[in-house]
């Protein structure tokens, strides 16, 4: 499934959030969105998920404009994991993941064993099956993020949009979420703050003040010049002594 953004623009209260952003997400790839705070990463993900109408331009899935599709239809192919979606409700992990079946259910199409199968599979995908009966408020931040991802997977999406899923997590959970994301058999668009994590993705898009200023493989995009222009930091690329892969080392501008 191909997701295309064409000349997207978004504004709020007269302020431009996104300006003429065009990109195509290729089937099967893991696409990283990076950029400073407020550069429009979350807004772009919300537009791609169809949660927000663009002021200009259009988002298409397999050539069809998102605006012409029903919410239910969109939710069956695109799932979004927001930053820090919380609840004070008393619900268990399994019930939270079961919410992902919402686009397939209706008063005339009740819950079936097939839905249970999808929930089980989603729980297995994020290694949270043993936590199925735990209550939400007893989970750690990393566990909650995994449950959110499982909930999104229960939607059987072709494309998974993740908004800074490693935010506020300790390093172990960051790495496990990222390796989980890479293992998933779906197309992934992931907003990231950690540029070294973006280095491990197939392609990277750099947003700066609402404009897509670079797009391509990470080693072509995350260059010292680009990082200086967009993030105002000096960066050096060094080799990992273990596997020889490149690591970015940052210094504050003098």
């Amino acid at each position: 499934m191909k997701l295309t953004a064409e000349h997207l623009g978004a504004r709020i209260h007269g302020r431009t959030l996104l300006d003429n952003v065009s990109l195509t997400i290729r089937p099967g790839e893991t696409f990283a969105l990076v950029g400073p705070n407020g550069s429009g990463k979350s807004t772009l993900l919300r537009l791609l998920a169809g949660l927000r109408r663009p002021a200009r331009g259009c988002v298409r899935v397999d050539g069809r404009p998102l605006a012409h599709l029903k919410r239910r239809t969109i939710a069956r192919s695109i799932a979004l994991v927001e930053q820090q979606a919380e609840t004070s409700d008393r619900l268990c992990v399994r019930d939270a993941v079961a919410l992902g079946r919402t686009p397939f259910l209706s008063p005339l199409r009740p819950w079936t064993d097939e839905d249970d199968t999808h929930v089980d599979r989603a729980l297995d995908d994020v290694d949270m099956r043993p936590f199925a009966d735990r209550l939400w408020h007893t989970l750690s931040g990393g566990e909650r993020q995994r449950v959110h991802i499982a909930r999104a997977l229960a939607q059987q999406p072709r494309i998974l949009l993740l908004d800074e899923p490693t935010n506020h997590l300790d390093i172990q959970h960051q790495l496990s979420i990222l390796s989980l994301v890479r293992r998933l058999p779906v197309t992934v668009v992931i907003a990231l703050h950690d540029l070294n994590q973006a280095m491990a993705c197939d392609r990277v898009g750099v947003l700066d003040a609402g404009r897509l200023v670079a797009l391509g493989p990470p080693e072509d995009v995350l260059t010292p010049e680009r990082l200086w222009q967009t993030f105002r930091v000096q960066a050096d690329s060094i080799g990992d002594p273990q596997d020889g892969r490149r690591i970015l080392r940052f210094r504050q501008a003098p």
Partner: protein
Amino acid sequence: MSRVISLPVPVAPRLHWLWLTPLVLAIALVAGTAIGETRIPVDTILKVLANRLWDAGYPVDRIDAGIVWSYRLSRAIVAACCGAGLALTGVVLQALLRNALADPFLMGLSAGASTGAVAVTVLGLGAGAIGLSAGAFAGAALAFGLVVVLAHAARRGMQAAGAIILAGIAGAQLFNALTAFMIAKSASAEQARGILFWLMGSLSGVRWDDVALAVPTALVGLGVCLWHMRALDAFTFGADSAASMGVAVRPVRGVLIAVTALVTAVMVSMVGAIGFVGLVIPHAMRLLVGSRHARLVPASALAGAVFLVGSDILSRILVPGQVLPIGVITSLIGAPAFALILVRGAGKA
């Protein structure tokens, strides 16, 4: 208390306890009909019912028959409908607005209803052509309209749920002030007393034509909630999350809030502003059956119905020779119950 908290949340929605609902409701209605200043035996009630419904022709004391049919049974049915309706509106608003304090009176409905009722009784608005109930309904509808317009205008720069809550508070304050102004300026002491009683809720004037309005309203409310139960579940992590799971947020929220307002306005116009049912019953039921709406909606409707029938019984027997306003009873039970929920909620966090 800790035993209730540690109850495991059942995985699949098991619904067989639902079959008990009509039975529990019937028991509550019979109790509401039997208990009062004149105690009426259950077999007399059943005989009166058989006579009325199937022309069974049992010999029954005519005064007993009158009390059962014309007075207590209609009253119990309306109490059950109001309790169910108010509890359901609480469930819906707490789910949609993601706010534990949301209740049916949040959107200025009860304040508007009292303003309407006072405008009719004190100022003689409508010159006798419209009754107190119609005035209350019009006031509630007006207040709701105002709150919706205000929330719509204020939605820029804040989330829709927050805008609705703040607009509701502003609307309630405005209409309460209008009510107080009219009472202070124009009402006689006797009128003021009558209004005070109406505001605290009263089922005294309830007859069968009220049943004809209350039952369909409660059923429509229940039906709409059950139809949208999966959408209500989807709001667990907020409106955006619901939208990303395929819920058409704006139309669904519009329908549910409109139905909520309609149910509240009808109930308030019949029996006055009965507090705490819509706030406390949903919270109590979440602790008992969990927060999935397939269970929460029927459980809250039943509990609200039984709670209000019970409160009505208490209001009639607590002080011999006097009927207390039912709002006093519900708040006397509801306030400590709510305090308990708050303390437990704080303990959980």
